Each structure stands twice: as C-alpha cells, then as structure tokens.
C-alpha cells in the first residue's frame, strides 16, 4: 500500500510554471535585450563592443551620479530605520486598540499614490510651506529657508514615502519574539537598555535587514520623488537613465548605465543578504 501514498513533503513544480513563464517572458527576456543593447557602440546599431561601459566607468561625472545615488539610499535607509524602529516598538508594546491605530497610520501612506505624497512634500518644504511658515511665526527665521530642491529635503521626503517598507518587517520580527525573554532578562538583572541591546535588538535583526533592503531598493529607484523634490540640479541614476533614453534617444548608453546600476544594486543587496544570514545565525544562537 505504501506505493500508492503520495509524498506530501514535496510539491509539484508545475504549480509554479505560470509564474515562471511570466518571469521568463516579461523579465528575463527584456533583461537579455537590455544587455544586448548595452553592447552596441552607437545608437544606430551595427557594431558591438564595450564602448558604452568604458564611457560610463571612465567618466568621473557619471561615477559621481552613481555614487551619490547609492549614498542617497544609505542616508534614507538610516533615517527610516532611526524613525521607524521606535514606531514598530511602540506598536508591539501598545494595547490592542492602539495597535490597530498605529498600523493604520503606518499603512495610510501606502493607500495614496507616491505622486500625491510627493506633492504634499512640495507643499510642506516650499518657501511658504508649513515648515517655513511655522519657523517664521516663531520668529526663528527672517527669510524663508531653502528646503525644497536640497539634499536634505530629498532624504526626508523619501524617508517618509518609504517608511511602511521599513516598519512592517520590523513589526513582524518583533512580534515573533517571545515576551518571556524580556522578562527573563530583567529577572536576571538586566535593565531596560541592556535587555533591548542584548535581547530584543539581535532577535529583531532579520526584520531590520529585510526592512533596510526594501527601503534601500525603493529609495534609490524613486524617480518621481527624486526629481520632484530634488529638482533639475540634482541628478540621480533613474533620471540619468531617463534623460539618455528618452530625451537623447541614446538607448545603448542608457542600457549600459542601467546594467551598471543594476549590478551596483545587486552588490549592495548581497551585502544586506550576507548580513541577514549572519543575523539569523545570531538570532538562533
């Protein structure tokens, strides 16, 4: 009879076939075309070579754009973590009704479009915006500060726009921690701070890593927020690619810088992933 029993521990791979086919058709194929395009030496096509990559990697300006984009991601991720972790912590420590409220507040931004949220920041950061108006009313400034079209403005706006991506994974990670562990820690004589540093923080690391990964990827590719808040004087990779592809119709160069961008992001992502693996080891130890 044993032969007729189905092995319930393995699943039929055919179930994943539709999604896999979708991926091959709409993701792998365009990526292959993009890669092929990036080796064309001029927009008219014909010759193939590494010209576009040499142009990008040999140009300090282009490397500067790449560097500032990756650095922007770091700043946004750090700020989001700094502001997001306490929110997740608060959510964990609150009574039921407050949890629902905090969750709603965290999710609310996801229910409006990024464009709308970004325009709200234009209004907040403008010369006659909320920040400047408040500072002027308090008598702290005489002339409005320049907040819009500055690096700081972009970081703050992106941090708010991407906040849910950071908070949600951390809430999940904190929720999985057995509350008895914190009690045990204090019984053994550790204060609040020590409990947090030695018990809660290490155990929530997988959530932090996942949140950082999502926030980072979303922040560096946020074309709309970067261009609306950053303006024309700040150039980041998404706008650079758009400019080359759309305005200049220089598709090979645009393809090449997309590939360079993709590879750089993959490097950063694998660093995060390695950290994630380490942290899981830490959390299980």
């Amino acid at each position, binding site marked *: 009879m044993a032969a007729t029993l189905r092995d319930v521990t393995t699943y039929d791979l055919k179930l994943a076939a539709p999604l896999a086919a979708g991926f091959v058709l709409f993701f792998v194929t365009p990526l292959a075309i993009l890669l092929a395009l990036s080796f064309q030496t001029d927009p008219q096509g014909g010759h193939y070579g590494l010209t576009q990559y040499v142009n990008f990697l040999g140009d300090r*300006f282009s490397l500067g754009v790449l560097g500032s984009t990756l650095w922007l991601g770091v700043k946004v991720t750090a700020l989001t973590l700094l502001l997001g972790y306490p929110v997740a912590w608060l959510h964990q420590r609150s009574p039921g009704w407050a949890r629902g409220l905090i969750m709603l507040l965290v999710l609310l931004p996801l229910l409006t479009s990024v464009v709308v949220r970004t*325009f709200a920041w*234009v*209004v907040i950061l*403008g*010369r*006659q*915006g909320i920040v400047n108006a408040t500072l002027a009313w308090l008598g702290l400034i005489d002339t409005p500060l*320049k907040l*819009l*079209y500055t*690096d700081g403005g972009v970081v703050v706006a992106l941090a708010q726009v991407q906040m849910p991506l950071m908070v949600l994974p951390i809430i999940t990670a904190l929720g999985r921690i057995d509350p008895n562990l914190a009690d045990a820690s204090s019984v053994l004589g550790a204060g609040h701070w020590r409990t947090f540093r030695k018990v809660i923080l290490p155990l929530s690391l997988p959530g932090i890593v996942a949140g950082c990964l999502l926030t980072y990827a979303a922040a560096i590719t946020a074309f709309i927020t970067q*261009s*609306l808040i*950053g*303006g*024309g*004087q*700040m*150039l980041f990779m998404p*706008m*650079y690619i758009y*400019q080359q592809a*759309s*305005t*200049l*119709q*220089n598709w090979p160069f645009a393809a090449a810088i997309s590939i360079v961008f993709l590879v750089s992001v993959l490097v950063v992502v694998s660093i995060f992933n390695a950290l994630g693996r380490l942290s899981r080891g830490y959390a299980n130890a």
Partner: protein
Amino acid sequence: MLLTRRNLMQTALTLGAMHAFPGLTWAQARPLVFATFTGSWEEAHRAVLVPAFRKATGNADMVLDPMLSVDQIAKVNAAKNNPPIDVMLHDPGPALQAVAQDLVEPYPVEKSAYYKDLIPAAQVPMGPAPFFQVVGITYNPETVKTPPTSWADLWKPEFKGRVGITNLNSTLGTGFMVELAKMHGGSEANIDPAFKAIEALRPSLAAVAANPGQLATLFQQGQIDISPGNFNAIQILKARGVPVEFVIPKEGAIAFKTTIHIVKNSPNKELAFKLIEAALSPEVQATLMEEPYLIVPTNTKVAIKGELAKTLAKDHAEIAKKFVFQDWAKINEQRSAWIERFNREIRV
C-alpha cells in the same frame, strides 16, 4: 448549444483574451490613431479637432492616444511596418528625429486645401505646423511690481534667489539656452555664451526644474517669482487663480512649431490626411484660438482676436516680427553634448 462547463469556460476565456489584447480584433481595420500630447492639448483636440474630423469624414472612427513625442517615436520605431499610430504630433527637435529615422510620410501638399494659407514658417513639407507654442517671461505680479521687458531682467539683483529655469530635457529649456546664446553673441552653433550667462545667473536661481510642468508648481508655491514660461501653460495657471502674468520680452518670444505628421506605412493614410487638413482649417484653428484653449493659429485666414491679440500679437505680420524661430536642425546636432554639459555645470 449545450451550456456545459467546458464551453462556458471557453467563451469566458475568449472574451477575456479579446479584452486583454484588443489588437486581436483589429487584425484588419483599426480606427485612425492620433497621438496628441497629454493634458490641455488632449482636452483641446478632443473638444474641437475630433468633432471637426468626424464631420469631414462622415463619422470615421478615430482614437486619441496622448503621449510624449519621444514615446511616439519609440512606439513607431518598434513596429515600423505596422505602426500603432497614424498621426504624430511633435515639437521641433523630435520632429527632425522622426524625419531622420524615416518614420514619416511627406505631406501631400498638392492635395491640401489649406497648406498654402499657412504662414511660411508653418509650411513644412514633411509635416505642416497647425499650432505654435510661445515662450516668454512669466512673473508673479504680486511680487514683481514693474513688469519685466527683457530676458536680461532675470539677472537683475532684485530677483536674487527668485528665478526659476528648467533643464535642457525640454524644448523650452533648450530653446531658452539658445536664446541666451544669441543675446550674448552666440548662436545655435555656439552655445558657450549661454553657459557663461547661466553661471552668472546661479546666485539668482531659486530652482532648476526637471521639467516645465514643475515651474507651474513652483509659481503656485511661491518658490519662484520669475522664469521663462510657455504661454499656454501660463493661461492654465491663470485660469486657476494663480497670480502669474506673461510678457513677450523685447528680444522677441521664442516660438516653436508643433508639427503634425502622417506616419510611414500607416494603414489609414487617407484618414490621416483628412485629420491634418481639419487641424489646418481656419474653422478649427479659430475655435482653438478662443478661451479656454488660446492656441496660436498658423493659418493666415484666421484673424487674431481676444487674449492672443492682447498679449501676443494683433496679426500675422506682427507674429512674424515678434516670434523668433530657432534652427532645430543645428540644435539637434549638439543637443546631447549641451545636456551633458548642463548636467555637469549646474549640478550642486
């Protein structure tokens, strides 16, 4: 027919597929597709041009598919033999690119009833210009008490930290740079003086917008008080109650032809011709000149009236005098190098 589960599924799937890929049902004949621009252009064309076309053709089927010039070119390029668009609308830069990439048919000038009535600048054999876009100085009358009279006013010390410009991605931004070059002894071939002028403008700059649409937001937010601006975009802001005014500087307004083209290999060439004829006709152009569209006509049979006569020019002779047309064939040669340079020099 028996209503079994199987054939019910089949029917549902077929209907679903037809819905998901409407192209399936258009295998033979499809309606005329006109790729106009988004926003106020689409509104104007839907309200005035489409009805005129329907009347002229006995209700022929047509679709507006608004998109940016560059997207039009990309789409037609991707399917040259069976283009998804029949009629394209372009700013001067992209128009020349479309012609250079062999994407458009020459306009059948000899068949056209209106082509000869267009002002000379609008008579383009590869696609005539049914409208102009006009760029002058935009300012906030609440903070700028004496209306500016020259592009040079942007450099005045009182506008320190109040000036807005756009980068060169747009026709407006590039045209403005060319005008600056000309003011300081340069030309379409020699842009250096414009970059020097922009360098001198730096302390005055409150914003370098990533596209002209952002300038509108910046005026609304009081972020800038003065900038180069598109006449039609300003009219929309004004209609919404934003305090902005438009003036033509004494150097003249920067004018762009918006040209309309029949796409090569279009299956609807005859209808495409009729749509363009409608766009060139004095009736359509006269209606589009009125509120709220205020689109500058190119047909000399249209007498200029209303807001246009007040702010821009009272007749076609004055248009010829006050409007500066730039040499976009020359500009296109070096535009990518300029964009590159602008990226580098303006970056903070």
